């Protein structure tokens, strides 16, 4: 467009990319420092550790009862994924297909748990769960985690369902299929990619959900991220390396699921809801 070189513009572009680069560099260094620390025999006052070892992972495994913690984490995550799928998908179907009085109000009710931060509603929620003698148990943790995940599934699934041509369902009904049959034989196969994406994101969110689990978990119902918090909180009691080893275990668990989820969804969908297909 302009034959003259726009030096100011170039400088600005360079500055923007430098800022992004600096952010990513710091992020990478931050993660690398956790991984290195977990492998270090000793790391004090030097650039890199003086020696490397795997034994902190074994230590962390025993010290923090990681086996139990991991079992609880996956029990909670599996239960949350299944229940939010079972409740969220039909609700999304109703909201996507039918227009009924109170639909807008219902959307608002589903929107709020996603907008209000977990710590804000977690404290009243934990109070209610304590009254019901559910807090401190794995059931309380599962229930608390469902609060944001069910609406999350609803909002991810609505555009997926709107995308499906309604005539496909009508054709099935013409041939005498009931709602259950339409669901099982028509909608489910068509919706599988969307459901998979939604549930994988729910899984990642549940493994990483700190606040709600923290507020409702008891000693035997901690998930990995809560156990990590307590270990850091009481840092000094345990060696720094074994806490970092646990952090690495957590990181690996989260990132594996994230990588799988990213095969099905766009990263921006993790913060915003799925965009409507034009």
């Amino acid at each position, binding site marked *: 467009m302009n034959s003259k070189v726009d030096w100011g513009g170039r400088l600005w572009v360079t500055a923007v990319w430098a800022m992004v680069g600096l952010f990513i560099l710091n992020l990478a260094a931050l993660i690398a*420092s956790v991984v290195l620390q977990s492998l270090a025999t000793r790391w004090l006052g030097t650039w890199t550790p003086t020696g490397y070892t795997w034994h902190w992972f074994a230590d962390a495994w025993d010290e923090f009862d990681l086996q139990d913690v991991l079992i609880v984490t996956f029990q909670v995550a599996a239960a949350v994924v299944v229940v939010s799928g079972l409740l969220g998908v039909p*609700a999304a179907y*109703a909201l996507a297909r039918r227009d009924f009085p109170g639909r807008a109000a219902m959307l608002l009710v589903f929107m709020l748990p996603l907008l209000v931060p*977990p710590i804000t*509603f977690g404290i009243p929620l934990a*109070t209610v769960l304590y009254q019901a003698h559910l807090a401190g148990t794995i059931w309380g943790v599962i229930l608390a985690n469902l609060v944001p995940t069910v609406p999350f599934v609803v909002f991810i699934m609505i555009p997926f369902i709107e995308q499906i041509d309604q005539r496909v369902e009508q054709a099935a009904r013409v041939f005498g299929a009931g709602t259950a049959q339409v669901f099982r034989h028509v909608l489910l196969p068509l919706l599988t990619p969307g459901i998979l994406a939604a549930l994988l994101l729910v899984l990642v969110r549940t493994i*990483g959900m700190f606040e709600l689990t923290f507020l409702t978990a008891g000693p035997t119902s901690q998930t990995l991220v809560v156990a990590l918090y307590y270990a850091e909180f009481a840092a000094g009691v345990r060696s720094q390396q074994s806490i970092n080893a646990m952090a690495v275990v957590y990181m690996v668990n989260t990132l594996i699921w994230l990588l799988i989820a990213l095969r099905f969804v766009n990263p921006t969908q993790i913060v*915003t809801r799925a965009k409507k297909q034009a």
Partner: protein
Amino acid sequence: MLAVPALLLVCALFVYPFLYGFVLSLEPTQGSVFANYVKFFSDPFLFDTLGRTFLLALPVTLLNIAASVPVALRVRLMRRPRVLTTILVIPITLGTVLVAEGMLNYLGPQGWLNRVLLAAHLIETPLRLVHNYWGVFLSLVITGFPFTFLLTLSYVTGIDPSLEQAGAMLGAREPQRFITILLPLLVPGLAITFCLSFVQAFSVFPSAVLLGAPAGATRVISIAAYSAAFEDYDYSMASAIAIIMALAQVFAVGVVLALRGLLYRGPVSTGKG
């Protein structure tokens, strides 16, 4: 009705606890109906947490948005933005607890950052970056910037490029195009982004404990609520603080949306309206 089970769950576990919490907050362990609220606003130890939280959340959110907009405008022009967005989604997924752990290593007095700055003779003594205000501030940047950025990006990519091309054709240079075309179109989206990011930052909890000074400069309102509930077992007071926290968030969001209402609202795409 297919939506009923999901609705019941959200009502029972979200709406009901809030109402219950509100009623509970009006039944203090001692004193009159509003004793908890009176105590919160008269006890500086409690009341100051509100100001501290604003002091932390507001600058962080503004910084994140200010940084997100130019980056998003550049990324929009990239052919494969997916690599970058994938990298940026990692800190969100890992969560604040892990980021706090990493920052304690990386930003500590013996950490790499201080070592690099010392080696480059940029500083004389190690910077104190953890266990104070800046530790929490930086952790909110690390987890908050990607969140803000991805939201901003989704708004920026929603703007029809032909609008900007039209401006360019009429001779507007890049800064002009930004001020007169993009910014007015972006403001409504940025207002929503601000609300979501601010509310996230306002409810900072784990990093304020692990990276901050939870007894001092970063005793944020969520710590006050938590300690009332689980250290003093005063659920009535804790509910009152949680309600105040929610109201403060609603207030901030309300102010931003009211301001937004004064500005342009309309389609960001052309044609086929």
